[in-house]
């Protein structure tokens, strides 16, 4: 029998639905959470099912509402806070980092803050400088936080359930271009362990460590590389804090070559951490300098004309792969009729979001 498949957004929905049903202390809150668009369908119908006490809208007060969620967690609740864009959550850095991340430590381990903050990262279709930031490295930098970035529907469900059941603040960063991808998702309750990467495609010639939407692009790149006779192993990070050092180093030990691919910026990014980890921990295994594939080191431009050079794409990963195995880069064929524009994930994707 073919396994059941869901879209990524449905997998998130199922995780929330299940968690709300299992534990009365779980509640879901955010701008537009109970509205008819349901945060890209991820919260659709939940308010109707669980009541507007448990699935609720909020004022546009990100910092205060984050503090309120934290305070409710200290009083026994398990809030899931939702931001339609990570960029809006920047207003709440104080509450997330100064309060939630520190609470357990600064009070000597007496009490955790079981808070989940879902943040969606925009890309393309004019998602400009204030609507496309992928700041996982900020959160990954901070002790006390956990940070998940699932790439598949399966992990989106399992990691979100694990996050909700975790006794610590967990940041869930969800890439907008993943929401429509489909994949097998088990029914019922299951948890994916936070802090474990996964070898999502085995290979012997190089290791691609990727995360979130870049995992999907890396799988595509691995196929292209395979056509060229290069077998890339793709490690899906899944969690960027805590980092699964063992899985990464093990893969590099096998392949001796590393490409680190991230949805964020380069400087002090997750890709820098991966490369640094490899340099420190897999020194003798590495046979070539590692390569990072990241956003260009500038703010996100709105015009589609610059999207192709700003966002990393399959072609960039392929060339990074070629580089670490010592091959020349390929020049990209010019975009042809029928190719999806560079600012949408596929031809079916429609603006404005």
């Amino acid at each position, binding site marked *: 029998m073919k396994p059941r498949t869901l879209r990524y957004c449905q997998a998130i929905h199922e995780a929330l639905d299940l968690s709300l049903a299992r534990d009365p202390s779980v509640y879901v809150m955010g701008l537009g959470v109970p509205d008819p668009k349901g945060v890209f369908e991820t919260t659709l119908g939940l308010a109707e099912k669980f009541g507007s006490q448990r699935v609720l809208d909020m004022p546009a007060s990100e910092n205060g509402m984050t503090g309120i969620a934290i305070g409710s967690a200290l009083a026994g609740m398990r809030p899931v806070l939702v931001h339609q864009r990570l960029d809006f959550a920047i207003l709440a850095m104080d509450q997330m980092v100064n309060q939630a991340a520190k609470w357990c430590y600064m009070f000597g381990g007496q009490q955790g803050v079981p808070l989940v903050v879902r943040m969606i990262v925009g890309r393309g279709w004019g998602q400009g400088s204030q609507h496309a930031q992928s700041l996982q490295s900020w959160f990954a930098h901070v002790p006390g936080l956990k940070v998940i970035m699932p790439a598949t529907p399966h992990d989106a469900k399992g990691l979100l359930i694990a996050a909700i059941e975790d006794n610590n603040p967990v940041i869930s960063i969800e890439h907008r271009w993943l929401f429509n991808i489909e994949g097998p998702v088990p029914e019922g309750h299951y948890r994916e362990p936070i802090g474990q990467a996964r070898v999502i495609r085995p290979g012997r010639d190089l290791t691609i460590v990727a995360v979130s939407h870049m995992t999907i692009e890396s799988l595509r790149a691995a196929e292209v590389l395979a056509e060229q006779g290069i077998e890339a192993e793709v490690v899906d990070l899944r969690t960027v804090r805590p980092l699964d050092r063992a899985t990464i180093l093990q893969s590099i030990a096998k392949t001796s070559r590393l490409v680190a691919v991230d949805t964020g910026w380069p400087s002090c990014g997750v890709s820098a951490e991966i490369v640094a980890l490899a340099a420190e921990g897999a020194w003798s295994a590495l046979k070539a300098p590692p390569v990072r594939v990241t956003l260009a080191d500038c703010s996100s431009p709105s015009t589609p004309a*610059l999207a192709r050079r700003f966002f990393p794409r399959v072609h960039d990963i392929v060339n990074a792969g070629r580089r670490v195995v010592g091959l020349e880069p390929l020049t990209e064929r010019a975009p042809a009729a029928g190719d999806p524009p560079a600012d949408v994930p596929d031809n079916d994707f429609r603006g404005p979001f």
Partner: protein
Amino acid sequence: MSSERLLRLYREMYLIRRTEEVIADLYKEQEMRCPVHLCIGQEASPVGVCQELEPADVAFSTHRSHGHYLAKGGSLLALMGELYGRQTGCSAGNGGSMHLIDRAAGFMGATPILGATMALATGAAFATSMRQETRVTVAFFGDAAIEEGVFYESANFAVLKRLPLVLVCENNGLSTCSPLSVRQPPTRTICDMARGLGMTAVSGDGNDVLAVSQLARQAIDIARGGGGPVLIELPTYRWREHCGPGFDFDLGYRHPDELAAWQERCPMQRLVRHMEKTGVADAAALKRCEAEVQQEIDAAVRFARESPYPDESLLLAHEYMP
């Protein structure tokens, strides 16, 4: 008000209305590849307020800024260029609809993070006061933006320093699809709240451009005269969906009757009725003005479409100011 003045008000509202209708029509071609937040139905606020400003006065706005940009005198060509993602756009294509600017016109910038530009406007007013200039700064924003703590912090400082600042809250009762009632207590009005902070606060019909301009006149005078910041609350209604070109009655969060009722109060029709009542209506002049505006818009669309995209080599060009 003179009939020329009234005609100018009509022209400016019509410019905003038609520009956005054209955007809505052309949007489906998928050439304007950025989120657009149309203000159709809300034109009285930008036009009523901006017509009371001096040329040296400046304005800031948020995501729903086409109207403010145009009413403040922003270039239509550069707006269209921006929506089409072209090099000729007001932000060289880097911004899109949510990041409009026309410094020559005193439109200091619009950015979509709720509440943020209130602080920027307060800061611009602070600069004015430090330099003892007589400029007034206006910030346009919605009823949700006022829920951000930055509003409160800005207001406190503006009151403390008696800054020449006018805050215009366009209260369309909605934040995306969420009604005011899930966001703010029914037991206090926005004006009550602003007064509690120590500001002068007034409210008036946000669909009546003459009422708006009268409130704006008073507010601007107070602010310019050293009376400190003034908040104007303008109840109004957006006709189209929150983001995008269409209507959204399929979503069910509001009923078409609601729109119909508000369309009865269309700011442009209201103005025409006023002109008729006061005997200054001139159907031919209105038609002429509409035709002119349409030509301008057509030219702007043509301009945008013919403009080049920014070259990929410019990707990093504007990151830092030399």
